[in-house]
C-alpha cells in the first residue's frame, strides 16, 4: 500500500445485495443537508459562489455600473482598459464594463427564461408520455427524436427567423431547442419512479393519477430535473449568444453579451479587449452553472461518487499499520483453512471510523460448514468480506486482529499476493446471482475466465473443464449451455453457474453470503444440497452467512450467532440449537412461527425493540436493552460479557447458566 492515498475517496454508498450492509448512521434532516452536501464539494462551493456573484451583478447593475451604458462618446472610441474605463470602451465610445454589467440582466434572463420555457413544455410532455405510454408516448418520443436530429443553433435560428428578432423570441427559441432534452429526461426518471413500490402503494391507497404525479412523482424527480436545468442553463446561454452574435438576438443599442461579442468581431485583431471581457463573462457564467449542476447531480444521483472527509486515506493507512503490528506479534500461522483472531473491521463514515466487526475469533476446519447467523447490522456480511479480502477499498479496513486463509496471513500480503490468494484458495458466492454475471458475455466465456486466470490451460482443456464444472453443479446439456447468455437462465441456474465459477480453481474455502435468500424455497434446497455435495467431494471449508435458522439446522455443522459485531454464542449446531444459552439465540429460535405453531401459541414470543444501531451501542452488553434475562442487573451495564464455555458451547452472557429448560 502506498502512503499517498487520494485525499478524496468515494464515500460509502451501499447497494443492497452487492455490498455489506451499511452501519446505520443517523441521517440528517433532508433539506439543509442538501445545501451542506453541495458546499462540501469544491465544485459546488465555487459554482454556488459564482452564481451568487452573477446574481448580484444582474440585480444591482444600475449601482455597479460606473458609466451610463448607452452614453456614446466619439472622443473616446475603442480605448484600451484604463482607470476610468476598466474594460475599455467600444466603437461608439460606450463604457464596456458598464455595458457588461447592464447586459448581465438580459443575458442571464435569456438563460433562465430559456430553461424555464424548456422546463414548462418538456417536463409535462415527458411525464405524460411516461404515465400514459402507448400511442402518446410513441408520438411524443418520435417528435422529440426529430427535433434532436437538428443542431441546436440551426433549429433556434429557424425559429427566430420565423418569429422575428427580439429578446422574447430568442428566449422562446432557445427554450424550444432544449425541450427534447427535458422531455426525454423527465420521461426516463418518471418511468423509473413509477416502478417504485411506493407509487403502487399510493395507487392502491386510492390516489387519483393527478395526485400520484403531483405528490409522489414530481417531488422525487425534481432533484434530477433541477440538476438538468442548471446544466442546460449554460448551453442555453451559449445558444442565445450564438444568435446574438449572428445579429438575431437582442437588438442594439441594448447590451447583451452575445450581441456584444458579435459587434466586437470587426475589431478582434486591433482591439481584442472588446471580445475578451464579454467572452470571459459569458464563459465563466456557463462554467458557474455547470459546476453547480455537477454538484447538484452528485447530491441527487445516488450512483455518482461522493466526497469524503479529508484525511480518509491517512486513517486507512493508519488502520492498516495497527493491523500489521498486531499480527506481527501474533505470528503463528494456522493450519485451518480459515481462522480469524480478534478481528476488528471498521467502516469509514462521515463521523470517523465505525467498527462493525468488534473482535471475532473463529476457525473453520476443512470439510466443515460454519454458519454465521445474525440480522442486518450485526456485521456478518462485513466479516465474510474481510475473510474474502473483498472489503471495499478506501471505505473499510481491518482495524485490528488478523485473518488467516489457507495458512497465509492476509494483512501481510501485498496486492499481487492477495490476488493470488483470492484466485487459488477462496471461492465466493453472493446473494444476487443475477448481478454477479456479466450480461454480455456467454457462460462459457465467464467460466473460462475463472479457469484461465493464472493458469496455462489450452482452449480445449478450458472447454472440457468448463463442461465438467457445469456437470458438477447439475446443469444438464453443458456443451450447449456454454454458448448461452445469463438472461437465458433462471435465478437458480444462475446461482449454480456462480457456484461453478467459485469452484473453478478448486478453492479450500467457499464463502457464501445469503446464497439463497433471493431464490424460491424449492430452489433454495437445491442450491444448499448442491453446496453440501460439493463440500463432500472436495473437502472445502464453507462459511455460510444467513439469517435463516432452518437452513442452518439442516445444512451447517457449526454456528456462530452474531449480534452487534460480536459472536455471542458459538458451537456445534446440534448443541447450540438444542439448548441455547444466550438469550438472543434462545429468542431467535423460539420466535420462528413454525416453533410457535407447533407449541400451539397464539402469539409469537417476539424479541422487543429494534436491531442494534452499531454507532450507538449501550455500555456493557449490547443486547441489554432487548434482553429479558438482564432484568436491570448492573453487571450487564458495567462489563462487556466475553465468550466463555458454558455447557457444550461458548456463550457471551454474564448469566448464561440461568437458561431454563
Amino acid at each position, binding site marked *: 500500500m502506498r502512503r499517498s492515498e487520494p485525499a478524496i475517496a468515494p464515500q460509502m454508498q451501499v447497494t443492497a445485495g452487492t455490498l455489506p450492509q451499511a452501519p446505520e448512521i443517523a441521517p440528517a434532516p433532508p433539506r439543509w443537508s442538501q445545501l451542506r452536501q453541495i458546499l462540501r464539494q469544491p465544485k459546488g462551493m465555487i459554482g454556488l459562489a459564482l452564481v451568487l456573484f452573477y446574481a448580484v451583478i444582474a440585480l444591482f447593475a444600475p449601482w455597479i455600473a460606473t458609466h451610463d451604458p448607452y452614453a456614446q462618446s466619439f472622443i473616446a472610441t475603442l480605448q484600451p482598459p484604463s482607470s476610468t474605463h476598466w474594460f475599455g470602451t467600444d466603437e461608439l465610445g460606450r463604457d464596456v464594463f458598464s455595458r457588461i454589467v447592464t447586459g448581465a440582466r438580459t443575458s442571464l434572463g435569456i438563460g433562465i427564461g430559456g430553461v424555464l420555457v424548456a422546463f414548462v413544455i418538456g417536463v409535462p410532455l415527458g411525464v405524460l408520455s411516461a404515465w400514459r405510454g402507448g400511442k402518446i408516448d410513441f408520438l411524443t418520443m418520435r417528435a422529440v427524436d426529430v427535433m434532436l436530429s437538428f443542431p441546436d443553433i440551426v433549429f433556434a435560428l429557424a425559429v427566430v427567423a420565423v418569429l422575428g428578432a427580439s429578446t422574447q423570441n430568442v428566449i422562446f427559441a432557445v427554450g424550444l431547442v432544449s425541450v427534447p432534452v427535458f422531455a426525454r429526461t423527465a420521461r426516463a426518471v418518471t418511468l423509473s419512479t413509477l416502478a417504485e*413500490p411506493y407509487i403502487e402503494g399510493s*395507487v392502491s*391507497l386510492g390516489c387519483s393519477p393527478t395526485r400520484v404525479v403531483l405528490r409522489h412523482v414530481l417531488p422525487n424527480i425534481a432533484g434530477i430535473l433541477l440538476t438538468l436545468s442548471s446544466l442546460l442553463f449554460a448551453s442555453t446561454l451559449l445558444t442565445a449568444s450564438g444568435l446574438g452574435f449572428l445579429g438575431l438576438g437582442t437588438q442594439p443599442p441594448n447590451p447583451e453579451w452575445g450581441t456584444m461579442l458579435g459587434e466586437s468581431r470587426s475589431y478582434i485583431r486591433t482591439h481584442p479587449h472588446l471580445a475578451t471581457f464579454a467572452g470571459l463573462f459569458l464563459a465563466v457564467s456557463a462554467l458557474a452553472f455547470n459546476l453547480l449542476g455537477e454538484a447538484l447531480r452528485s447530491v441527487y444521483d445516488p450512483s455518482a461518487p461522493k466526497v469524503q472527509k479529508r484525511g480518509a486515506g491517512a486513517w486507512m493507512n493508519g488502520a492498516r499499520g495497527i493491523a500489521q503490528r498486531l499480527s506481527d506479534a501474533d505470528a503463528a500461522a494456522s493450519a485451518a483453512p480459515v481462522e480469524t483472531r480478534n478481528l476488528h473491521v471498521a467502516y469509514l463514515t462521515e463521523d470517523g471510523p465505525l467498527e462493525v466487526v468488534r473482535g471475532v475469533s473463529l476457525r473453520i476446519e476443512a470439510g466443515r460448514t460454519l454458519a454465521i447467523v445474525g440480522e442486518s447490522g450485526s456485521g456478518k456480511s462485513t466479516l465474510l468480506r474481510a475473510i474474502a479480502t473483498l472489503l471495499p477499498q478506501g471505505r473499510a479496513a481491518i482495524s485490528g486482529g488478523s485473518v488467516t486463509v489457507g495458512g497465509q496471513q492476509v494483512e501481510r500480503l501485498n496486492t499481487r499476493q492477495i490476488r493470488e490468494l483470492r484466485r487459488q484458495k477462496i471461492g465466493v458466492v453472493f446473494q444476487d446471482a443475477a448481478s454477479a454475471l456479466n450480461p454480455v458475455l456467454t457462460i462459457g466465456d465467464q467460466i473460462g475466465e475463472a479457469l484461465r486466470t493464472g493458469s496455462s490451460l489450452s482452449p480445449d482443456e478450458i472447454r472440457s473443464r468448463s463442461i465438467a464444472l457445469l456437470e458438477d453443479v447439475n446443469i444438464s446439456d453443458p456443451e450447449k449451455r456454454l454458448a448461452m447468455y445469463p438472461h437465458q437462465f433462471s435465478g437458480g441456474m444462475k446461482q449454480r453457474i456462480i457456484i461453478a465459477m467459485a469452484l473453478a480453481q478448486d478453492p479450500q474455502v467457499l464463502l457464501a453470503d445469503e446464497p439463497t435468500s433471493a431464490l424460491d424455497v*424449492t430452489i433454495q434446497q437445491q442450491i444448499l444440497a448442491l453446496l453440501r455435495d460439493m463440500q463432500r467431494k472436495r473437502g472445502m471449508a464453507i462459511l455460510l452467512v444467513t439469517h435463516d435458522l432452518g437452513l442452518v*439446522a439442516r445444512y451447517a455443522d457449526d454456528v456462530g450467532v452474531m449480534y452487534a459485531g460480536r459472536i455471542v454464542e458459538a458451537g456445534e449446531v446440534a448443541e447450540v440449537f438444542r439448548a441455547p444459552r444466550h438469550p438472543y439465540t434462545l*429468542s431467535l429460535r423460539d420466535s420462528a*412461527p413454525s*416453533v410457535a405453531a407447533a407449541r400451539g401459541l397464539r402469539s409469537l414470543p417476539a424479541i*422487543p425493540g429494534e436491531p442494534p444501531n452499531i454507532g450507538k451501542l449501550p455500555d456493557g452488553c449490547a443486547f441489554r436493552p432487548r434482553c429479558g434475562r438482564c432484568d436491570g442487573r448492573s453487571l450487564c451495564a458495567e462489563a462487556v460479557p466475553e465468550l466463555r464455555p458454558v455447557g457444550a458451547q461458548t456463550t457471551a452472557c454474564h448469566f448464561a447458566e440461568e437458561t431454563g429448560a
Partner: protein
Amino acid sequence: MTDLTLSGDAITARDLKVHFPVRGGLFSRRVLPPVRAVDGVSFRIPRGSCFAIVGESGSGKSTLARAIVGLLRATEGEVVMDGTDLAALDDAQRRQMRRKVQLVLQDPHASLDPRMTVRATLREALIVHDLCRDRDEQDRRIEEVVRQVGLSISHLDRYPNALSGGQRQRVAIARGVICKPTVLVLDEPVSALDVSVQAQIINLLMDLQKALDLTYVIITHDLSLVGFMADDVGVMYLGRFVEIGPARQVCNHPVHPYTRSLLAAVAGVDPEHEKSRPVEILQGSVPSPVAMPPGCTFHTRCPLARDLGPRLPPGERVTVEGSAIPALCAAEVPEPRQPGAEPVAVTCHFAGSGQPPETAATDAADLQDKGR
C-alpha cells in the same frame, strides 16, 4: 351497511383470470399467446378470516393479489367484494372501493415515499378518501393509528430514512388501516424484515385483525407463517390453485405433490431431525407462464407422476424429460376434487386416491408432530 356485507364473505372470486397480452414483431402487430398469470381461480374469504396464497415466484400470487385490490382488471371471471362486482366499477368508483381494501407491500424500504414524513404519508390517505372534516380531526386520527401500530407520536415527523425496517413496516401497516378498511392484502409482509423483528410484526398483525375486525389476504412463500396465521390457504402453481382448504389441514396433511414438496422445504430448527430426515427436493424450476406445459402444468416437475409412471403399462405412460409419467398427466388438465372428508380441493389426477406411497406426507406430518 347493507345486508350483503353481513352475509359472511368479504371477498369471493369466481373463475378469475388475469392475462397479459404479449405483442411481438416490428410494429407490435403480431399478437402472441397471452401470459396467463392467473388462470381460473375461485375462492371465498369469510369476513374476519385470514386467507393465505402460497406459491413460488411466477406462480401468479402477486397478480392475484393486485386483482383483488383492484389494481389490475380481471380478464375473465369476477371478484365480488362486499357484494359489489369490481368489474362493474369505473375508475373513480374503484378508487372509492380501494378504501375498503388496502395493500401492504413487502419491502418497507421502498414502499414509503422517501420525501414524505410519516405524518404526511398517513394524512394523504385521509385526504384522498376525504375522511376527516379538518386538520385537527386528521391529526387525532393519525395519532390514534400510530399508537395502534406501536409507534409513538415522536415518529410522526420523521422521514422514512430515519426509521428502522420494522418501524417502516409499522408505518406501512398504519397507512393500510387508517381509512378503516375491511380487507388488508399483505404481500410478503415480513420477508424483508430482520428475523427478530418479524415476530413483532406478525403479532401486531394478529392483534390488529382482532381489534379492527379485519379480513386478511396474505401472499407468502413461507408455509410456516401460513400454519401460524392463516385460516385457509390456497397453494398456487402457474396461475391456478393446486390445493385449497383449511390451513391446518393443508399444512398438516398435504395431499398435492407440490404442496408436499413446499412443506418438505420448510426447515425446522431442530438440527438432529433436520439432518436425519430424508428431504425430497423438487427438481427444476417453475416453467414460463408464456409456454405452459399441456395437461397438468406440474407434470414437468411432479415427483408423484415420476413415482407412478414406471408402474403403469407402456400404453398408459409417456416419457417427459427422461422420466416415465402417466399419460393422463401430460394430456388432460385435472379438475379440482375433494379427496377426503375435509373441505380440501386438490387439482391432481392421482393424489389422495390411495395409490401412491405416503412418504412425503408422513414426512411433513412428522415434522409438525415432532414440533409439538
